[in-house]
C-alpha cells in the first residue's frame, strides 16, 4: 500500500469528505488562502473555493459558535482550532453549546460539528502550544474525542467524525504530522469508540493514546527481546471509551499500564484505572499503573521537555514494574 504522511492523510480525508457531501465546509484561521499553519488544508481552497473553505478572523469562540449554528441548520462544518491550547477562549461554545443543544433542546437539534486541532508536546512550543487536554473534553457528555495515532487512523477517524451527527473533536498530534504510514486511497471510516489492538501479548496490557501508541509499540519490541509479551491497545477515542476492549485484554494479561502525554493527575488514565478495578479487580496481579506527564506545564527547553513526556523507555520500565508483582 502507498505511504503518505499523517498530515497528508488529514488533507485527503477532507478532500474526499467534501466531495462526498456538499454540506461539509471548512472554517478557521488561515485555512483557505494560506492552507493552514501545518499545511493541513493545502489544496482545499483551489478545489472547493471560498464558499466552502472559509478564512476567519482570530475569533475562536465566534467561528466555533458560528459552526454550531450552521450545524444546527444543516451544514456539516469542520472548524479548525489551530492549537489545542487555544480551546480555553472558545470552550463555552464547545461544552455548553455544541455538546448540550441536542439534549437540552429535547432532541430536536443535532450538531454535526467537527473540531480539528493539534495537540501534544515535543516541539519546544512552550507551555501554551503543547498541551494534551483531551481529558477535559472527555468529561463532557455530548462530545466525542478522537486522537489518531497513525496516518491510517487520521483519515479513518476524520471520516467517521465528519460523518457523525454529534460534535466531535479530532486532536492531531503535532509531532506526528510528518510521520509516514500506509493509507488506503479510497475513503473509509474507523468507528468512534472502537479501540485497536495494535500488538497482542499475554504478559501485560499497555493502553495508550495518540503519539504514545508508537512509543508503546517500541517498548513492546524491546521487552519482547527479554521474552516479555506486551499487548498494546490504541484507544483511538477517549470519548466514547472502548471499556470492553480494555477489560477483555486485562482479563487475559492480568496487568495494565495506561500511558498518555497529558498530566497523570485527572487524566484519562485515572478513569481507565478506576474502571479496571471496578470491573476486573479479581483478574489483576498488580495495581494498574498510570504513566503521564508530571504535574507541571509543558516546558520549553528541549532537555526539560524530554524529561517531561513519557517515552518508550519509561513505558518499558513501567511494564517491568508491573511484572515484579506476582499474582496472589
Amino acid at each position, binding site marked *: 500500500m502507498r505511504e503518505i504522511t499523517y498530515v497528508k492523510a488529514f488533507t485527503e480525508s477532507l478532500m474526499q469528505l467534501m466531495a462526498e457531501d456538499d454540506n461539509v*465546509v471548512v472554517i478557521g484561521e488561515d485555512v483557505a488562502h494560506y492552507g493552514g499553519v501545518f499545511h493541513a488544508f493545502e489544496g482545499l481552497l483551489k478545489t472547493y473555493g471560498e464558499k466552502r473553505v472559509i478564512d476567519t478572523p482570530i475569533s475562536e469562540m*465566534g467561528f466555533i*459558535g458560528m459552526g454550531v449554528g450552521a450545524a444546527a441548520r444543516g451544514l456539516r462544518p469542520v472548524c479548525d482550532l489551530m492549537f489545542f491550547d487555544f480551546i480555553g477562549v472558545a470552550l463555552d461554545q464547545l461544552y455548553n453549546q455544541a455538546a448540550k443543544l441536542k*439534549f437540552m433542546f*429535547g*432532541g*430536536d437539534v443535532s450538531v454535526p460539528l467537527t473540531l480539528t486541532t493539534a495537540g501534544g508536546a515535543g516541539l519546544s512550543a512552550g507551555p501554551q502550544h503543547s498541551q494534551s487536554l483531551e481529558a477535559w473534553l472527555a468529561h463532557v*457528555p455530548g462530545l466525542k474525542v478522537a486522537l489518531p495515532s497513525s496516518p491510517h487512523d487520521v483519515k479513518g477517524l476524520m471520516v467517521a467524525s465528519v460523518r457523525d451527527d454529534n460534535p466531535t473533536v479530532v486532536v492531531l498530534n503535532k509531532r506526528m504530522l510528518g510521520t509516514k504510514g500506509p493509507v488506503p486511497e479510497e475513503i473509509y471510516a474507523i468507528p468512534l469508540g472502537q479501540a485497536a489492538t495494535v500488538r497482542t501479548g499475554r504478559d501485560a496490557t499497555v493502553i495508550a493514546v495518540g503519539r504514545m501508541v508508537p512509543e508503546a509499540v517500541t517498548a513492546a519490541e524491546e521487552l519482547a527481546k527479554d521474552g516479555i509479551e506486551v499487548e498494546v491497545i490504541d484507544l483511538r477515542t477517549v470519548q466514547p471509551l472502548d471499556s470492553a476492549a480494555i477489560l477483555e485484554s486485562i482479563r487475559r494479561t492480568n496487568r495494565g499500564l495506561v500511558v498518555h502525554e497529558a498530566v497523570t493527575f485527572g487524566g484519562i488514565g485515572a478513569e481507565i484505572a478506576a474502571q479496571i478495578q471496578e470491573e476486573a479487580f479479581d483478574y489483576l496481579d498488580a495495581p494498574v499503573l498510570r504513566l503521564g506527564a508530571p504535574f507541571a506545564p509543558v516546558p520549553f527547553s528541549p532537555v526539560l521537555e524530554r524529561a517531561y513526556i513519557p517515552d518508550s523507555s519509561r513505558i518499558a520500565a513501567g511494564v517491568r514494574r508491573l511484572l515484579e508483582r506476582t499474582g496472589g
Partner: protein
Amino acid sequence: MTESAEQDPMSALPPEVIRDLHRRMVRIRLFEETAGKLMEAGKMPGFLHLYVGQEAVAAGVMATLRADDVITSTHRGHGHAVAKGADLRYMYAELFGKQTGYCKGRGGSMHINDLSIGMLGANGIVGGGIPHAVGAALAAVYKGQDSVAVPFFGDGATNIGAFHESANLAAVMQLPVVFVCENNGYAEFTPQDRHMLLKDVADRAAAYGMPADIVDGMDAVAVYLAAQRLVERARAGEGPSLLEAKTYRFYDHQGVKGLRIPYRTQEEIDTWKQRDAITSLEQRMTTVGVAAPPELEKVWSETGEEIAAAIRFAEESPDPDPAHLLDNVYTV
C-alpha cells in the same frame, strides 16, 4: 401624551399589523404574569427570568420576520418564543419540567426552542446564542436561501466576547444578521452606567463597520418600523446591522418578588411602568380607530382562555421517565 391620529406613524401601517403586534404583546404579558404566579405558588421548579415590560421589542421585531427566519434568544427568552409563534402548551409543559415540554423536561425555562418556527433556542449563557445566529445566517447564504437571522441579547451581553466576535464575523462575512439589543438598563443588577461608558449600545456597531439604529423599545410600532428596514436590508444582501431598543424590565432579574437590596428606585420603576407598551398601544389603537376597547378586551380574554388550557395541558402531562435519562445525550 397620545398623538393625534394624523401624526401617529401607526396610521401608515395596515390595521392587521397593529392588531398583530397587540396580540403578540398580550400573549407574552399574560404568559409571563401567569408563569410568575405559578412560581410564587411553588408549582414550578427552577429559575424564572420574566420578560414583562419588554414586550414591544419581541413583538415588533418578530412581526417583521418569516417562519424560516431564525432567532436566538437569552435566559429571558419566553417573550421571544411566544412572539415567534411557539405553542404555549409546550412552553408551560417545559416550565413544569414535563415530558411534553419543548425540551422534554431536559432544558427548562432557559432553553425553549422550536426549529419549525425558526426559534433556535433560548440560552442560559449570556451571549452564548449570538454566534449561533451568525451560523444560521451562514447556512442560509450557503444554501441560497434569503432568510435572515436575528440574535436577541441584552445590554449586559454586549460586554462579552461572543457579542464582539459575532458582530465582527457577521460584518466581515457580510451575513444577513440583525443584532437586536434589548437595552433594559441593567446587567442583572448592575446599571448600565456602571457596566459601560457608552450611553448607546448602538455606538458599538461602528467598531465593526455596520449601521445601527436606536428605537424606543416601549413602542411596538417604532420597533416594527425600524426592524422592518434592517431586516429587509439584510434580506437584500446588504449585510448585518444592530438595532438597540431602549426598554425596561418590570420584574427583577429573576423571579417575581422584590430583592433584599433595592437596586432601582421606585420612581424609576413607576416612570417606566407609566410607559407600559401595551397600555400605550391600546390608547393609540383606540384613538386612531384601529380597534375599539371591546375588541382589545376580547384579545385579553381569548388569550387568558388559551393560557388556562395550556396550563391544564402542562399539569396533566406526564413527568419524564428516569429510565430515559440518557436519551438525546448523543444523536444515534
